[in-house]
């Protein structure tokens, strides 16, 4: 699945030298469900190697890029003056590779503060115009470098605090970039200021590469840069990991709780070792608030596992985990079971374990699971962190609530067991659905769902937020989002439908539902509303028939018979299993009887 030479911690020199063979291998092993994305690499300096190495990291994430590369240094002109080749390329994403070499107005030592503010605003304005143009003219996502620090300091330390200092100027300019990022969706900062520090600015800015080839960073730093960009891209397209599944002994605490007893394990402030494990537990726990699910996967008796997790000096508690597997089964099997219980795929999992033998078994038996090499407890945090498994691009309210939602699901499961009749159970949930045309507040969640949903997804068509917003405003489209709430809590937006009207036929280009609300009859409520909406359309946008499409992917077998259940008639099917279904809306009978719908 993922290429060994690209696994963290990678050797940048091997990647640079062997890029051609790596690319061949990645293309040969590309999963059938790969995404194709069009990326405009807009550079303020040379970008060739960045493009070639970025391609490797994207392929490694199952994203096959097509590139547009601006001529040397033409990032701004290409966009502002609509370079025809860029216009026809129609990028999904613009990656703007600028550096402090592209700043043209630095403060002079004799400038007064008004003059410096003017320079600052002019620099910021140059970029704002450029981003606005990208957003309005191309509707693409933007990944923009902030600025790295300069490689020399004319005034020494004073550079940082004095408004005449370049360090100070760059810091202020970066803040202007962040303001834009905070105000505008679909705009992401590629934090080269951080990664150049982490890499070592002295090497990063090696002027040899600037004078020789007009590279703003040294060649060996390019894999780090490319990995950083690829993390943002894969996060935008919903390819983040979702679950961190953790071993216990020597992973979350030092020692073996079954042998050493709860008082014998190391976690807390008493020892250096205990401090390392305590901080690691805090780091892990913080992921809950980002919507990452935690589970335990440990060879232990359950009782011992729980006593370790209840250690008074630990940060984690048993209730922080969505699933606890403490048993003597193979860990790969535990992961498969956990995945099934959470309605997720194994490829959404990260497995953290100090034991190389356990890691090898999981890598071998549970393909797709990411297995970082956890060696020294004092390095656990950095080891995990550098991967960017959970790179945040949109922090939606939904992400924040995800952990709670899985707990509510557990409560629902308990309730379900108390009913003999499934419909009685559904009625007892007191479900209420809000099913309406796309509304501005939900645009980012809707775009996120189109990029993340794989299983209950009929066409697996991916949309950017720009495309979602465009469809919402276009009369030729019928859009619906469904939000489901019940007596245990609010699931948020869980279903999205987009239909395109063409000559009295509605073509359903997107129909998806989050797996967290499977078997709740929400899809029937959605179809009822869709048909109702179609019946209400008059004049040129009137609709008499609905065409439903099923495009088979590696993951969406569960909806193969979806349109059959909706009483559509199969019109055609090809040898790959892709099918077209049709419904005459006059013949449609309302299906939902358990969800109260507000539309």
């Amino acid at each position: 699945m993922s290429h060994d030479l690209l696994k963290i911690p990678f050797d940048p020199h091997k990647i640079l030298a062997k890029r051609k063979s790596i690319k061949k291998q990645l293309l040969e092993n590309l999963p059938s469900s790969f995404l194709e994305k069009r990326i405009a690499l807009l550079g303020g300096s040379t970008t060739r190697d960045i493009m070639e190495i970025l391609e490797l990291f994207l392929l490694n994430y199952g994203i096959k890029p097509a590139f547009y590369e601006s001529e040397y240094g033409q990032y701004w002109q290409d966009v502002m003056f609509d370079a025809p080749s860029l216009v026809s390329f129609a990028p999904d994403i613009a990656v703007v590779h600028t550096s402090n070499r592209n700043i043209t107005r630095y403060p002079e030592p004799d400038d007064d503060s008004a003059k410096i503010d003017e320079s600052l605003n002019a620099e910021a304005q140059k970029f704002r115009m450029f981003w606005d143009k990208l957003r309005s003219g191309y509707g693409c996502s933007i990944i923009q470098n902030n600025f790295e620090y300069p490689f020399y300091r004319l005034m020494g330390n004073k550079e940082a605090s004095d408004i005449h200092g370049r360090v100070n100027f760059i810091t202020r300019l970066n803040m202007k970039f962040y303001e834009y990022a905070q105000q505008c969706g679909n705009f992401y900062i590629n934090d080269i200021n951080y990664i150049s520090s982490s890499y070592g600015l002295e090497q990063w800015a090696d002027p040899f590469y600037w004078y020789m080839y007009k590279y703003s960073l040294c060649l060996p730093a390019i894999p780090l840069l490319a990995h950083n960009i690829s993390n943002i891209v894969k996060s935008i397209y919903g390819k983040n990991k979702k679950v961190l599944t953790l071993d216990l002994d020597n992973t979350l605490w030092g020692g073996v709780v079954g042998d050493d007893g709860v008082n014998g394990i190391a976690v807390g402030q008493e020892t250096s070792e205990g401090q390392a494990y305590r901080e690691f537990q805090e780091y892990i726990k913080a992921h809950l608030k980002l919507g990452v699910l935690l589970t335990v996967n440990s060879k232990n008796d359950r009782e011992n596992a729980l006593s370790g997790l209840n250690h008074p000096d630990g940060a984690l508690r048993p209730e922080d985990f969505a699933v606890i597997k403490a048993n003597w089964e193979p860990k790969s099997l535990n992961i498969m079971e956990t995945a099934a219980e959470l309605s997720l795929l194994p490829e959404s999992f990260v497995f953290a374990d100090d034991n190389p033998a356990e890691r090898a078994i999981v890598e071998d038996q549970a393909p797709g699971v990411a297995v970082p090499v956890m060696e020294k407890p004092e390095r656990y945090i950095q080891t995990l962190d550098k991967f960017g498994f959970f790179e945040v691009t949109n922090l939606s309210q939904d992400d924040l609530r995800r952990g709670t939602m899985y707990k509510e699901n557990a409560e629902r499961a308990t309730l379900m067991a108390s009913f003999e009749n499934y419909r009685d159970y559904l009625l007892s949930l007191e479900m209420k659905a809000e099913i309406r045309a796309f509304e501005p507040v939900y645009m980012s969640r809707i775009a996120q769902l189109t990029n993340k949903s794989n299983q209950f997804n009929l066409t697996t068509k991916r949309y950017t937020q720009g495309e979602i917003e465009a469809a919402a405003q276009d009369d030729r489209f019928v859009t619906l989002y469904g939000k489901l709430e019940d007596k245990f809590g609010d699931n948020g937006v869980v279903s999205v439908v987009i239909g395109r009207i063409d000559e009295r036929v509605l073509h359903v280009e997107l129909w998806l539902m989050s797996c967290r609300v499977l078997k709740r009859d929400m899809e029937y409520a959605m179809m009822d509303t869709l048909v109702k909406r179609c019946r209400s359309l008059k004049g040129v946008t009137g609709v008499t028939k609905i065409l439903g499409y099923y495009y088979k992917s590696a993951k969406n077998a569960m909806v193969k018979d979806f349109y059959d259940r909706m009483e559509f008639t199969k019109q055609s099917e090809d040898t790959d299993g892709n099918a077209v279904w049709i419904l005459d809306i006059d013949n449609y009978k309302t299906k939902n009887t358990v969800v109260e719908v507000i539309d």
Partner: protein
Amino acid sequence: MTRQEIFSSLNEVFRDVFDEEDLTVDETTTAADVEGWDSFAHVNLVLSVERRFNMKFTMVEVTDMKNVGAMVDILERRAAADK
């Protein structure tokens, strides 16, 4: 390291960089003789040679290098200077 030994190590670097298993370079090989050896590949080649021989070229050396023989001359001089 003899001139021949340098060539043999250099061939391995070239094979990696141009991903061609039977590529062999000699004294007179130039960029025109190797498929894919453009100015961009050259950047990568220079870095890979530096890594392999644990040395750094100066800017002038990189600019003036006319063929593989000239590259080997530099590598030879450096190896002698290190002794």
